[in-house]
């Protein structure tokens, strides 16, 4: 199966080269989507073994992932993996995340930071933000997964056909989860290790996600 790894990048020139070189061992094609970076990204990608797409202006992670996924589909991808450019994910986990699709056990796979014991998540995030997000997912969206905001995921052929998302910013994570459930796809979770360099999504970010989902619901 032809595996494409889509890496959205916004001002991640410092980590991008290492991430791409690490990931290239585990997939057939890499698609870097530069989301309107103002750093040295364009220079860095010149020598990297990857397809390169550039948004003229910053449109958000969800938008960049959709651009990369659309590109991968046009180039005949069977599996598309979404991977971060900041070096927080481990390239080796890519094998784990595509395995259930290759073995016909799942059509979409989410990486979970909670199934893995080595991830050192900030305590406030682990004990307050994540349980709250899990609670919202469970009782508002009827989704019962261990990781409510996983950005590391693999979409198999059927998922690529069925799932579409419209959220440009961070709410795409929830939107993809909901779409996967509503499409009746077989979902799997695999443990992944996340190395936290910074706190990441804060309470304000969570509220923005809820706001975006609410506005999108009203606009439909």
């Amino acid at each position: 199966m032809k595996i494409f790894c889509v890496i959205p990048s916004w001002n991640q020139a410092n980590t991008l080269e290492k991430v791409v070189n690490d990931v290239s061992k585990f997939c057939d094609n890499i698609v870097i989507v530069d989301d309107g970076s103002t750093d040295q990204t364009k220079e860095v990608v010149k020598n990297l073994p990857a397809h390169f797409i550039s948004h003229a202006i910053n449109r958000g992670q969800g938008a960049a992932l959709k651009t990369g996924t659309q590109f991968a589909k046009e180039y005949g991808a069977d599996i598309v993996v979404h991977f971060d450019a900041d070096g927080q994910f481990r390239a080796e986990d890519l094998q784990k995340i595509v395995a259930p699709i290759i073995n016909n056990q799942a059509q979409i796979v989410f990486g979970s930071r909670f199934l893995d014991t080595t991830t050192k998540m900030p305590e406030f995030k682990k004990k307050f933000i994540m349980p709250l997000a899990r609670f919202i997912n469970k009782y508002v969206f009827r989704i019962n997964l261990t990781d409510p905001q996983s950005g590391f995921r693999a979409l198999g052929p059927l998922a690529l056909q069925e799932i579409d998302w419209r959220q440009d910013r961070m709410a795409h994570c929830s939107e993809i989860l909901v779409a996967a459930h509503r499409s009746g796809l077989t979902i799997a979770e695999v443990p992944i290790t996340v190395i936290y360099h910074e706190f990441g999504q804060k309470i304000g970010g969570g509220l923005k996600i809820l706001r975006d989902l609410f506005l999108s619901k009203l606009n439909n």
Partner: protein
Amino acid sequence: MLQEYIALAFILFFLGRLGWQLYKDQISKSQFLMWTLFWFIVGILIIYIHAIDSFTTKLGFSSSGIQLLFYIAVVLLFYWVLRLRLTIEKMSKEITELTRSQALANKNSNHN
């Protein structure tokens, strides 16, 4: 009564200003009509403020008619802000679509 005359004077000032803006081509005819209608309605409400007062009392509210108008105005403002927000969201999505199609048309590849 004086308050009502002052309010009506303000409305006349704004109507005059609208007419001047239309004459100077600073606003379109549809904008002129919309704002004229708006100030016209406000004027009617001010002229009949005592009737609104009694209507408010009949409805069982302890406040005066002008307060009721303020409450309605606040609700309408919230609604308009929401509509504005939805329009901005829609435009934002369209900008993303445009950015995406441009990006996909100009893609580069270092793959063999």
